[in-house]
């Protein structure tokens, strides 16, 4: 079921050569189209209900719990296993052998027999197998100090101090969330025609949201075990301030390059949304208030964005100045412009840093759900349907397409060391993508095909040497090494946001930019790079819990206003 979204009636979209630069992609923030928010809107709209029919966790913190998510047509079971993990086994890396908690999202209401089957496999994660009745597999480790601190406070009948929680933002963080056929689970094709699964990563987001619920229930249970007479539950507001952490490293970096049409569909939806807003002829009072409210929320949220990474800390400082500038620049100044929202955008493009410009994009989208929320359900792609190469293309057609869409790539001298300093490979030891130094490490003969810019320039050189009227079918028979790029070039002609316009093997590459871009589409906040190759984030922080969904606003939690007087009183 594809929904057609007409973007032609709106403003011109920002061109790929502007949007698809890695430094800009690495400055993206969550928007109302982000997957976490889209999932919450869908669950609320369709009146999903939630229950926890099975809770068998013992005093050592071991056992199993099951949460049911019930929608209008289907029920999903989140199966949560808790383990008693020795501290030395706790690793934040994707490759590990044991975790504090492990999870599977099961399709349907789970039976005892399936719980038993999963109990033999899910705790082993990659070393176990699932069936196509499972949709998501995940695991999470405690933030040990914070978890213990919260158990202690609750057991003593006290609430944890908000500021202490804010420094971390979560009690557990996931080190992987697998879906789409990994380890024997169901292929996405199997669920992609379900309404609740329209849009990317819907099952994964549902799972992470339920993991957050489990973790909060779990910490309260552990406090009750520690001191049954004095223990209290978390104050609902404090509880809501806890998200799920996530550590993401190089393993995720190639995803955007390996899913070019999906990347296009995400960016295209976001750019279409921006263009629709810029095309609006008026700014009514409600929308203006809404915008100013979200600006204030975003500004305040910067105080809770902690990072030790100097590069990111510097960017956050600049973003703070940007948002101050935006607050001082009264929105009223733009009211009388022909296209007031466009005028704000253009002012931002001239005045703000990349972080600020892209935050402004998020803010501009905020008041306009009616105009843009339909785009959230078209952000997926049929990579298979677009796989075919059109071999009747002539060499000269191909050359002009390359010149038009790969100008960023073809003039670089990749023989010069700084432009090809890295190579991507898959590590035999970790079975994970890694980045190697061409000069210092063995293995560049086993390079993964992520060197898009260099390979485009190689294709360009060989095309120039070929006869202009030769068809690509014949060219590719002589040059099978160009088949991958030829396919991408043809795709990019149809899907201009399919390609990142930067050299992914050059010395200036910051892999965290790739991670940040993808995670912003998930809806992550508080990006905290731990190096140039991995980043920590928080998911679903401040979102309602399942039992709160029906009575709370499902969509105003990404940057909530903090009730400072209350948190001080509790501190």
């Amino acid at each position: 079921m594809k929904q057609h979204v007409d973007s032609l009636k709106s403003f011109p979209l920002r061109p790929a050569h502007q949007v698809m630069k890695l430094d800009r992609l690495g400055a993206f923030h969550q928007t109302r189209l982000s997957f976490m928010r889209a999932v919450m809107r869908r669950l609320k709209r369709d009146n999903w209900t939630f229950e926890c029919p099975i809770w068998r966790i013992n005093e050592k913190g071991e056992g199993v719990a099951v949460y049911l998510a019930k929608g209008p047509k289907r029920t999903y079971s989140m199966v949560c296993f808790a383990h008693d993990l020795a501290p030395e086994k706790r690793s934040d890396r994707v490759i590990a052998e044991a975790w504090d908690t492990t999870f599977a999202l099961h399709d349907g209401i789970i039976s005892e027999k399936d719980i038993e089957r999963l109990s033999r496999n899910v705790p082993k994660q990659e070393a176990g197998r699932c069936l196509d009745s499972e949709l998501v597999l995940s695991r999470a480790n405690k933030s040990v100090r914070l978890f213990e601190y919260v158990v202690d406070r609750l057991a003593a009948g006290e609430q944890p101090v908000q500021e202490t929680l804010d420094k971390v933002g979560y009690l557990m963080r996931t080190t992987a969330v697998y879906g789409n056929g990994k380890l024997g689970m169901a292929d996405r094709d199997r669920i992609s025609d379900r309404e609740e699964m329209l849009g990317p990563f819907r099952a994964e987001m549902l799972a992470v949201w339920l993991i957050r619920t489990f973790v909060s229930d779990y910490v309260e249970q552990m406090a009750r075990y520690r001191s049954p007479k004095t223990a209290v539950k978390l104050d609902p507001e404090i509880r809501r301030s806890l998200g799920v952490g996530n550590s993401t490293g190089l393993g995720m970096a190639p995803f955007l390059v390996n899913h070019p049409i999906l990347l296009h569909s995400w960016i295209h939806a976001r750019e279409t949304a921006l263009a629709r807003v810029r095309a609006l002829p008026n700014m009514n009072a409600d929308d203006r208030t809404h915008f100013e409210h979200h600006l204030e929320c975003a500004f305040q949220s910067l105080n809770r964005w902690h990072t030790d990474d100097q590069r990111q800390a510097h960017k956050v400082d600049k973003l703070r100045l940007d948002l101050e500038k935006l607050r001082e620049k009264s929105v009223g100044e733009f009211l009388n412009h022909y296209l007031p929202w466009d005028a704000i955008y253009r002012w931002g493009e001239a005045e703000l840093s990349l972080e600020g410009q892209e935050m402004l994009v998020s803010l501009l989208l905020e008041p306009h759900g009616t105009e843009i929320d339909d785009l959230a359900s078209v952000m997926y792609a049929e990579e298979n349907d677009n796989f075919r190469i059109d071999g009747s293309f002539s060499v000269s057609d191909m050359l002009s397409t390359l010149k038009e869409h790969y100008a960023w790539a073809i003039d670089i001298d990749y023989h010069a060391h700084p432009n090809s300093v890295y190579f991507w490979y898959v590590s035999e030891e970790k079975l994970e993508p890694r980045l190697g130094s061409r000069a210092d490490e063995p293995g560049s003969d086993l390079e993964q095909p992520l060197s898009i810019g260099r390979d485009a320039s190689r294709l360009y050189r060989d095309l120039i040497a070929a006869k202009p009227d030769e068809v690509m079918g014949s060219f590719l028979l002589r040059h099978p090494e160009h088949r991958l790029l030829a396919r991408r070039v043809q795709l990019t002609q149809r899907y201009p946001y399919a390609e990142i316009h930067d050299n992914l093997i050059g010395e200036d590459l910051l892999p965290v930019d790739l991670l940040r871009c993808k995670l912003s589409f998930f809806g992550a906040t508080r990006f905290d790079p731990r190096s140039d190759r991995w980043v920590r984030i928080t998911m679903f922080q401040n979102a309602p819990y399942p039992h709160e969904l029906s009575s709370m606003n499902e969509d105003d939690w990404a940057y909530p206003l903090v009730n400072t007087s209350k948190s001080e009183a509790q501190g």
Partner: protein
Amino acid sequence: MAHYSLNEIEASARKAARGAGMTWGLAEEAGKATRWLAARELPNVTTLLNLLTRNDGKDYNSLRPQDLSNIWSASGGSLCPIIAGSALNDLAHKIVSGQEIKLTAVSCPALILPILGRASKALGYGFVVKWDGLKVNISPKKLYLEQGTISDLGIKFTSNLFVTGLSLDSSLSGLEIKRVVKGVPLGDREWSDLQEFAGRTYVPASEESRLLGAGAGAGLTDND
């Protein structure tokens, strides 16, 4: 027998094809082709393994059609179905315009079907593929085995294979082969052989990679 998802099969098949010497672009075709066969419960990973074993270490130029006249043959004995299938796709406009293409000596011919299946869907045209006693009709939406059996599809070699256009006006007959998305059963041996080819694309760890590969500080434990 364990069950594998289509994504697992495609990803491993792509790596395995690369490991056995195909370029990345052809290895992608091999991955998609194996997935397509698996999704229709036709001989899949075994067929690919037969091909990779047979052509392991052979030079590309000995496996490709030597020229693109109406009769294709390879200089090194038999054509690779991924290379030939990709060329058939790339030049599908010729077949559609009425030419019959004959392929002389082809390894594992079933791997040609997925590539033509995708071309059919994209172009809105049909193809007929014949070898030995077997006839397959490919239309944009449906697939029919008109002559032969499903297990015949798994053969390792045919001396003659014919591809022609298929008129979509005529009614198609034969056993309809439908697409099913569910776990695909594979023997342990098949899976481990596939992983062995795939493993050739991995880089063994070195001191440098252990220190640098995932980024500074990545090897630390993380008890905060």
